[in-house]
């Protein structure tokens, strides 16, 4: 009940007109940037970070909540309407919405994605409201050794489960940890790995790394193999009536709920993020559906379920983020950076020290969800226009804005140089199949890991067994083994599933323009 009162207080803060404007702007900008092709949620958040520099903390966090949900949602519009394969991670789900659009049911696909995102986002936020305060209370009692265990879980799962191979993920994590080492060490005050260079003495700003990897690295990577020629969009019939038929509703509501039920827990535990959630939901829907044959040719369940799972996972990710200060995805890592910019350290203390702020943030998540659905369906026309931006201008804009963001950190040109170097690193990582998310997570969590590790060992007088003898820590390591084992098994299943599935589709005569799908699938 006490939490409910706090939530109401949060609402009364977040519903103030000026904050409503910020929530609105956040959702609008987040969706607009998220819709742009090639820009995932992590890059959306990284690119829009400088926008919030001039705001007060509450306004900034509320804007961020909007950007986060908007950016998460924006991508689905892209994959439904753009006539090219979407992100490889969600390729099966991208195909489904894309096929629906080609059959002239794009409006229904967009609608089920939007409503599903709303349902999942709202239920996910309710679950967050219920789970987070209790977890925070529990987390206050955790000692340094327990934290080390939690961080090790995050490291190993993020490193081993993101990307094409565990060794590449761990290498990416290692680079992030190394970048985190650069700078002045807190306890003894000496510089480490700065090469005696003054700009490195304070360490490398996380914003530079995030923007460099996601915006500059991605721009360089796209530039190296840009698809030239006209942007091909699938036309969508306008008008309210074509959105969703009664049958569409009937086929959508269960996948929405199931997607939410799958997505939220997957988001809470560090088990590979939204990719795993969307895949699980898709596989579940395919098995349960009475229209199994339609899957791969535009089954609405295949859009409704995974899209909800994606957004529920986005809400779930906020649980460890707010209660433990633990980012489990790249997007979460950048959000932590945004918090830290304002001197706010997410973690168990946050709920007791700054309750107004947390609850205003949670309330704005509810509000953001409502704004999202109110905005998105009517604004589809604008999103379509955004998708048509000529690519040279789009990527020139991303590059310019990224450089602006880097310059705005300290107003020193040396930051732009660091940004460029990290951008080039990001380019090569993408080129050679290294995931970039573990790097960002490693960079954020590295300093925290070192601090907790040293605290733990200081307390135990250097006795290493302290790390593995606490009951909580033991539980963590057992869970870790289950996660990594289960996660790797899931990933193998996902790869096999996608392979057989695309083969199935390529062999079977497709009712529509299936030719380009077959072409796309040839390795």
């Amino acid at each position, binding site marked *: 009940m006490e939490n409910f009162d706090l939530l109401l207080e949060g609402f009364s803060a977040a519903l103030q007109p000026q904050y409503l404007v910020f929530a609105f702007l956040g959702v609008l900008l987040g969706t607009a940037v998220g819709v742009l092709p090639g820009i995932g949620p992590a890059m959306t958040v990284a690119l829009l970070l400088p926008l919030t520099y001039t705001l007060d903390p509450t306004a900034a966090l509320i804007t961020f909540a909007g950007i986060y949900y908007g950016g998460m949602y924006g991508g689905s519009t892209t994959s439904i309407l753009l006539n090219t394969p979407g992100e490889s991670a969600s390729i099966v789900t991208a195909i489904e919405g894309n096929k629906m659009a080609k059959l002239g049911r794009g409006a229904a696909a967009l609608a089920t994605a939007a409503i599903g995102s709303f349902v999942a986002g709202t239920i996910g936020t309710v679950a967050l409201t219920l789970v987070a305060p209790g977890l925070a209370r529990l987390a206050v009692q955790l000692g340094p050794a327990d934290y080390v265990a939690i961080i090790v879980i995050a490291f190993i799962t993020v490193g081993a489960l993101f990307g094409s191979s565990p060794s590449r993920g761990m290498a990416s994590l290692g680079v992030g940890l190394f970048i985190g080492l650069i700078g002045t*060490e807190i306890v003894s005050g000496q510089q480490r790995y700065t090469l005696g260079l003054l700009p490195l003495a304070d360490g490398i700003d996380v914003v530079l790394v995030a923007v460099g990897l996601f915006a500059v690295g991605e721009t360089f990577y796209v530039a190296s193999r840009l698809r030239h020629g006209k942007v091909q969009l699938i036309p969508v019939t306008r008008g309210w009536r074509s959105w969703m038929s009664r049958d569409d509703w009937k086929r959508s509501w269960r996948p929405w709920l199931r997607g939410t039920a799958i997505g939220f827990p997957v988001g809470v535990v560090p088990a590979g993020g939204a990719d795993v959630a969307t895949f699980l939901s898709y596989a579940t829907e395919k098995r349960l559906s009475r229209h199994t044959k339609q899957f791969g040719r535009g089954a609405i369940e295949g859009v409704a379920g995974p899209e909800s799972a994606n957004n529920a996972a986005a809400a779930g990710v906020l649980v460890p983020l707010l209660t433990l200060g633990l980012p489990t995805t790249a997007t979460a890592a950048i959000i932590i950076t945004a918090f830290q910019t304002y001197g706010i350290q997410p973690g168990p203390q946050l709920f007791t020290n700054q309750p107004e702020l947390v609850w205003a943030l949670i309330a704005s998540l509810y509000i953001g969800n409502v704004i999202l659905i109110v905005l998105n369906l009517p604004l589809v026309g604008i999103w379509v226009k955004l998708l048509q931006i000529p690519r040279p201008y789009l990527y020139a804009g991303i590059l310019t804005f990224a450089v602006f963001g880097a310059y*705005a950190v300290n107003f020193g040109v040396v930051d732009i140089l660091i940004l460029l170097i990290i951008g080039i690193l990001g380019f090569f990582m993408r080129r050679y199949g290294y995931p970039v998310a573990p790097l960002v997570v490693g960079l954020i969590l590295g300093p925290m890991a070192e601090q907790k590790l040293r605290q733990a060992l200081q307390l135990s007088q250097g006795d290493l067994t302290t790390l593995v003898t606490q009951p909580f820590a033991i539980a963590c390591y057992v869970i870790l083994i289950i996660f990594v084992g289960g996660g790797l098994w899931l990933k193998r299943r996902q790869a096999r599933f996608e392979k057989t599935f695309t083969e199935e589709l390529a062999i079977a005569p497709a009712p529509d323009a299936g030719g380009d799908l077959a072409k796309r699938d040839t390795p």
Partner: protein
Amino acid sequence: MTADPTPTERTAGASRLSRHIGELIFAVLLFALGLYALIGSFAIRVPTNAQVGPTVFPILVSVILLGSSSFIIVGVLRGHFGPAEEGEDIDPNAKTDWLTLAKLTGLVIAHILLIPLIGWALAAAVLFGGAAWSLGAKRWWVALLVGLVVGLFIQIVFGELLGLSLPLGPVLSWLGPLI
């Protein structure tokens, strides 16, 4: 489906080889970074009273880097390559366009050098216009014009109205007192 190579695959054979060599070099560089982290940790002074000095974590990091990069090097030598990332605007059959990458890198460096000389907005216009032109915008002057609008917009909104200290430069210095 995997058995017979498509025509594009055959012609791309040469560039594929250079890509594999590049992948090997990148993995070796990661190994070198791990070595540097390890060697650098010996240069860190350890306070006498510390149970766990400031070198412990760097050594752990170097172990992660050395271990994972060794795995990758062995894998690459055995023919296990990382799949390049995919995306909506990426043509999977295109050859790597190094010239454009060089242009973009040069433009960012030019932007860095130009900010103190001609102010932020104009330097941003050069960056935007140049980048759009490098990426294939048909008319360079439209690209530059759009860049000028973008640069001025950011300068006025963020620099003048929201108070971020973006240098105006000699050409636009009259703008400051105006707003």
